[in-house]
């Protein structure tokens, strides 16, 4: 078996005549935390849909833990989980019962389920809120619950789709730190989709910068970037920003040119 938990080879996605992903290839090794950084509409969510098996690529192949996520959907049960931009909790379940949802589906015995839910609630600092319903939790607490739900099944791979972007900066920072701790403790691989440059370089060990349509503009070792630019991040941030803007400009020009020609 390959040591890569994710392999994406020459993948393109077309929605009608709209090109959302263009000839994308990359792999992610087991145990790493990779941020996918891109502007809105870059095709980040589309990529996640490919990886969790909600969408089949128009061409190319996707392998997650050695499986085709669409054709071998069942085989991936229990290996993947995801947290979204909004918490997406079941309103009629308490925080603890929400954390148990995945384990319930995987038929984890009741006592163990409960114990593991308590553990993950502790990890996200919600030890005292387990009996509350989502309507009785703050936005940040709900997002913590949804992170706990994703970790509770003990997945090999976790996806985050802009999971910190709806929170205020202080709350988000705290939760990002917790996320790093939790992923390291459970040695889970993670793909974190974000449009925040700071966030990407703060929590990942590798950052893939995406252009629009989805393709890789840059591939960074985040630890190295933190070492080199940690004291003075702004110029580097500006550099990444410019990279995305330039790519967009070049695309727009190329598109205009092809329109003129045709």
């Amino acid at each position, binding site marked *: 078996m390959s040591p890569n938990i994710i392999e994406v080879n020459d993948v393109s996605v077309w929605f009608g005549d709209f090109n959302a992903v263009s000839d994308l290839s990359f792999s992610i090794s087991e145990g790493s935390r990779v941020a996918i950084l891109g502007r809105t509409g870059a095709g980040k969510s589309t990529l996640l849909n490919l990886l*969790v098996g*909600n969408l089949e690529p128009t061409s190319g192949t996707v392998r997650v833990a050695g499986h085709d996520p669409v054709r071998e*959907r*069942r085989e*991936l*049960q*229990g290996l*993947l*989980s*995801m947290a*979204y931009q*909004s918490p*997406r*909790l*079941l*309103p*009629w*379940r*308490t925080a603890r019962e929400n954390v148990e*949802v*995945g384990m*319930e*589906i*995987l038929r984890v015995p009741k006592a163990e389920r409960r114990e593991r839910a308590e553990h993950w609630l502790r990890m996200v600092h919600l030890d005292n809120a387990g009996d*509350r*319903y*989502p*309507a*009785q*939790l*703050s936005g940040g607490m709900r997002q913590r619950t*949804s992170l706990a739900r994703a970790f509770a*099944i003990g997945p090999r791979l976790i996806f985050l789709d802009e999971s910190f972007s709806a929170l205020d900066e202080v709350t988000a920072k705290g939760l990002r730190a917790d996320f790093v701790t939790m992923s390291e403790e459970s040695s889970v691989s993670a793909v974190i989709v974000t449009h925040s440059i700071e966030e990407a370089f703060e929590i990942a060990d590798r950052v893939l910068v995406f252009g629009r349509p989805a393709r890789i503009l840059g591939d960074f070792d985040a630890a190295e970037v933190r070492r080199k630019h940690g004291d003075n991040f702004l110029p580097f941030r500006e550099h990444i920003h410019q990279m995305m803007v330039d790519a967009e400009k070049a695309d727009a020009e190329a598109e205009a040119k092809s329109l003129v020609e045709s």
Partner: protein
Amino acid sequence: MTTSTPVSTKEKPSSSAAGAPEKATSGNLLRAVKDKWALALVVAVILGLVQLSSMILPPFLFPGLGDIAMAVVDILANQKSDILITMARFVVSLVVAIAAGWIIGLVMGAFRSTVGALFTPLFSIMQAVPALSWVLLAVLWISDINIRIGFICFAISMPLIAIAVYEGIRNIDPEIVEAVDQFRPTKLQALRMLLIPQSVVYMIMSLRSTTAFTLRILVFAELIGAASGIGQRMQVAQTNFQLDMIFAWTFLLILVNFALVYLIDVAEKHLLAWRGEAVIR
């Protein structure tokens, strides 16, 4: 109907229902009076009008409050069995209608494009049939009185419940469905975790109107061909010009309706506790 309820930021949601700290009992009493003043006023005005009418009109057209009260006592002393029979018919037909409506609504929701598509127009037509038609047809079709009454109540209330449950399932938030679906549940697990709890909300909402409506129809159905029950008693009272009895039965039926609303409130408080306090007003 399931628009997101405002977030309660209270630390201890189980404390006093109105949110304000508990005061002395006199304070609570005052609040109860304040809440119910409109009801009290309306009741007083109605009673006053009844009494006034009885003084103006001859007694065989309009009984006084005293006569009505006597009739109520008479009923409670001698005709309890009719009340019990009607209530038993009511409970049995409603339970059957709820069970069937719920299951049918769930199946409609699980197979929207086939079962859902077929039953929606069927139920629309059934709901358009006048209650009187159901009663008249049932009298001709079904000779057993209890089955006949059950059939009428079923035909009228079951579609209301099925449609409400179906509606609830169609309104389920697709984002939440996706969040559960990521764990790859079986159909049965999805039913248990998503569809059933979601349908409970709409179910209870629909019960508010369905129960009262069903009781009215049931009494109406007992009017024709029944040998017992509140409707039959009212019919006897009508043939004998016992207006006090008609008023007394009406009074009792109003009480039963209020009791039903109260029961649904209690059920709602328990089953929909997760919605926070918005729903309990």
